[in-house]
């Protein structure tokens, strides 16, 4: 299947260096990283453990800032934001999906999604979001009462409720069995294809790359390859 995009740039990494620590013990997590992502793209950042892919995602998510270089998202320079601006950025621009869901255990599925109302003014209806991920029947369940896949779908519903410009996922299927993982990935792909959301996933699972519009392969903190997938495969069609 061929996807057509308008080519409007939403993310740009310009010569980004991220160094942890100082002196001899310093670790270079990102080494002159450059790439761009266009609006509505389904992007997979691929690499082994320690490749620097999570560092990229953290900077994209406004949870970390580069040592040098520029990170620009939706026309805003994330790399030079202060604490307060970063909070606002996280609230308005990105929706984050974690490997371990990170739902608040003392809130129900519905409340975990509704939580977003406390952050953004025009949050989407939590019930609608739960419906979108197929969990309308689980609204009153606490995280401990749901399966991993269900929890991850709540987490996606929570991310969607903010109506973010980009959705970031850090190994969102890493803790799930393959069956459940497919459901979650399908959901994300659907968001991208049907609702034109920009979805950026970090993973070490090369199979997922088959479904992406763009694959950024990283190794030792450097971008090794940026590959445009002219014919991304629907999630269901991939052999897992």
């Amino acid at each position, binding site marked *: 299947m061929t996807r057509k995009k308008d080519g409007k740039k939403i993310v740009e990494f310009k010569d980004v260096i991220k160094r942890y620590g100082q002196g001899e013990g310093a670790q270079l997590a990102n080494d002159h990283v450059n790439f761009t992502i266009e609006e509505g793209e389904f992007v997979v950042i691929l690499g082994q453990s320690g490749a620097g892919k*999570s560092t990229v995602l*953290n900077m994209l*998510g406004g*949870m*970390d800032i580069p040592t040098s270089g520029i990170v620009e998202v939706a026309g805003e320079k994330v790399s030079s934001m202060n*604490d*307060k601006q970063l*909070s*606002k*950025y*996280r*609230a*308005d621009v990105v929706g*984050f999906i*974690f490997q*371990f869901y*990170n*739902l*608040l*255990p*003392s*809130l*129900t599925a519905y*409340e975990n999604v*509704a*939580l*977003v*109302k*406390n*952050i*953004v003014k025009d949050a989407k209806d939590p019930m609608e979001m739960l419906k979108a991920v197929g969990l309308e029947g689980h609204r*009153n369940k*606490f*995280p*401990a*009462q749901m399966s991993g896949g269900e929890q991850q779908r709540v987490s996606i519903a*929570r991310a969607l409720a*903010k109506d973010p410009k980009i959705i970031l996922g850090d190994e969102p299927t890493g803790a799930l069995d393959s069956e459940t993982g497919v459901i979650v990935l399908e959901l994300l792909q659907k968001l991208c294809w049907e609702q034109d959301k920009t979805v950026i996933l970090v993973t070490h699972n090369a199979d997922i790359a088959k479904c992406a519009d763009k694959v950024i392969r990283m190794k030792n903190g450097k971008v090794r390859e940026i590959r445009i997938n002219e014919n991304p495969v629907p999630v269901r069609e991939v052999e897992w």
Partner: protein
Amino acid sequence: MLYRKMLRELRGNFGQFLSIFILSMLAVMLFASMKASNISAYRKQADMYRVTNTADGWIYGEGFGEEQLEKIRDMKEVGDAQRRMHITASAKEHDQAQLEVYLMDEAIVSKPYYVSGAPFDPSKENAIWLSESFAKAWDLKVGDEFTFIYRGLEITKRIAGIIVAPEWQYMKADKDLDVITKNICVIYMAYREFPAKDYVKSLIEKGDLTLEDAAEHSELVRDKLEALEKFGISKDDVTTEQLLKMVDEIDEEKIQKMLPYTEIAFTTNGFDVKGLEEKISDVLEGDYAVLCDRSNISGIKVMDDELAQHDQFAVSFPVVFIAIALLVIMTSMNRIVSQQRTQIGTLSALGMKRGRIVAHYLSYSFWVSLLGSIAGLFVGTYLLGDFIARIFREWYFIPGWTVEMDWSFALVVVLIVGACTGATYFSCHKVMDVKPAESLRPAAPKAGKAIFLEKLPIWNKLGFDAQYNLRDVFRSKLRALMGVLGTAAGMMMMVAAFASLTTIQNASDWTFEKLQNFKTQIDLDGDVDIEQAQALRDLVDGELVQTVAVEIASQEKAKAGERKSTVLVVTEGRELFRLTDEKQKLIQLKPGTIAITKKLAEAFGLKVGDTVYWHLYEKNEWHEAKIGTINRNPSLQGITMLREDFEKTGEKYLPTVLYTQETAPGENVKKASGVLAVHDDADLHQSFDIMMQMIYLVLGVFMIFATVLPIVVLYNSGNLSFNERIKEFATLKVLGFQTGAIRRLLSLQNLWLSLIGIVLGAPLGIKLLQYMFDSNGDSMDYQVAAGAMEYAVSGAFVLVISVLVGFLFQKKIRKLDMVETLKGIE
């Protein structure tokens, strides 16, 4: 290795362990401060009793002869005994200070405790020994001359020694409400040194001493009378002039022998004084008024009550701190151990014995509480305890009173460290009991569940902050309990401190605006001529009042244990000395009845209409009186009756004070015969002012504790809450919550806990204050009062602390590393 692990983890959890350290330190500190000064007081008191051979019992009567003394001495239960005479005089050049003068020619029982100069020696001529506190207040030195006035007689002697009177460890002038050392002094003097002839002549002139009285007490007079009778002259034929002449002819030494001894002080060979009453009564053939033991001597009783109060405080206050410390320990250790679940599993899997692992975790709180306790022991004893002893030395006089420790200190440390370590075991053993294979896997996070409040319609109206925090409170009940108890204790102390100001102010208003309808108090000589006193009264349009020591009972022929020593106030009903009821409403005494103070009535179970039996302390005859009303007075407990009723009993009315609304009586009043001292309004207020200063001090100390407690507890609760929810907060941060919003979320819970603590602590503060005032002994009856303002200020104070503690987390939340926190397995 485990030792190093412990040290590093102590550092890593510094806040919590500091809380445990502070709380165990505070608990031991409070105990030690009260106890250390008490132990020293008891020991020094015992030393003083031993050195001075302080009496165990006192027999008061109208006069004791040598024969009676010998009979008492011969009792096998009695150790030593001696007679003495006690008079109350006033200082001539020292603000007419009240002087309690002991005239004694032996130094066997209840000798003064010698501080400087020469020890008491009744054979020394022209000498007196006086109180150290008074000497200090007036800068009197050994060798100085000192003049005092007794019944118009001026007596000047040289100060031979500075002493402490074992029976006057507490002493305050009758006019004062509190101890003012420059107004009261105890003096010891040889009876021989008393100008007996002048004194006897003044008694005869006033008609207070008749030939008959003299004959009763003196063999010499009896011999003279017998001689006169041979000439056909009976005692009735002798005129006052002849009697005076007769006295003139008798030499001083012989007159000395005629002087009455109104007291026998004795020690027992370990027998209970009150148990000896029947025997003493037999031996003296009933010819005495009152038998007292140490608990009847106010100078000893007030001191002993104070020490007993400190003993109570030494236990009750630390208990509060320990209870909170235990909660802090249980919650903190529980968190630490739960966090280390996988480490425990690893150690276990490596083959370390369970006992060793348990001991390792117990060692955290063991060392911290031990160090805290030891710090508290020294700070409490040598700083706070010393401070307390220093303050109380202004009120009580026990030579050498400082601070000392005893075995109970070690016991308290063992108990506190034991309790802290035990609490750790209690909170950790569940984790320790998990099988290694299981504990190598992380524990499931605490599951959220619906709480009962969710069934209420209001639940859905609550915002996210409220719902989230409510569920969290129910997830961590122990932590919430700790927060509530900590703030409740803080609030309790704040309310008690502020309310004590109001209470004293209330007592002051009660006294000066209701009870005392006068501006000036004129102290009268104990045997002022009644005509003179009345003339004086008419001159200043005042009211004469007699205050006298009595013993009362609720039934006839009550035994010693069923009687109480108290005060009888005889008024003329002119409403300058007034009475109020329980609600501080003015009441009037009905003729033919007496008023009894509430506390006393309650002690006897008496009510209006009941009969009270009473007798003057120095007289043997009992009278009865009907209770007409129950009154309440903050600082004077006893019975009150009208002069006409008092005189009907046959007792002689001897007014001791004259009250007037005149603010500045003229010199003619001040210099009038029979006037001992004139106290103006400022003078009367002095005691309250001093009491207020004391209260400010208490307020300060309480405020320190009231500040430290909520800070420690709320910080700790916040810290635990923060650490327990750190992942959740990191998630919220990633979702875009601002630092301030997360801090508010965290603070909100503390705010609730504080509010509950405030509501619970407020009434406890009043209870605490009432307990503190009640433990002040029988003579006080303060109405503990607190207005809305005190509650509001105290509550606001605790709330402000709660809010400020929240800001301590601002930085922590800002610095919260989302990436690091959310990394890793769950």
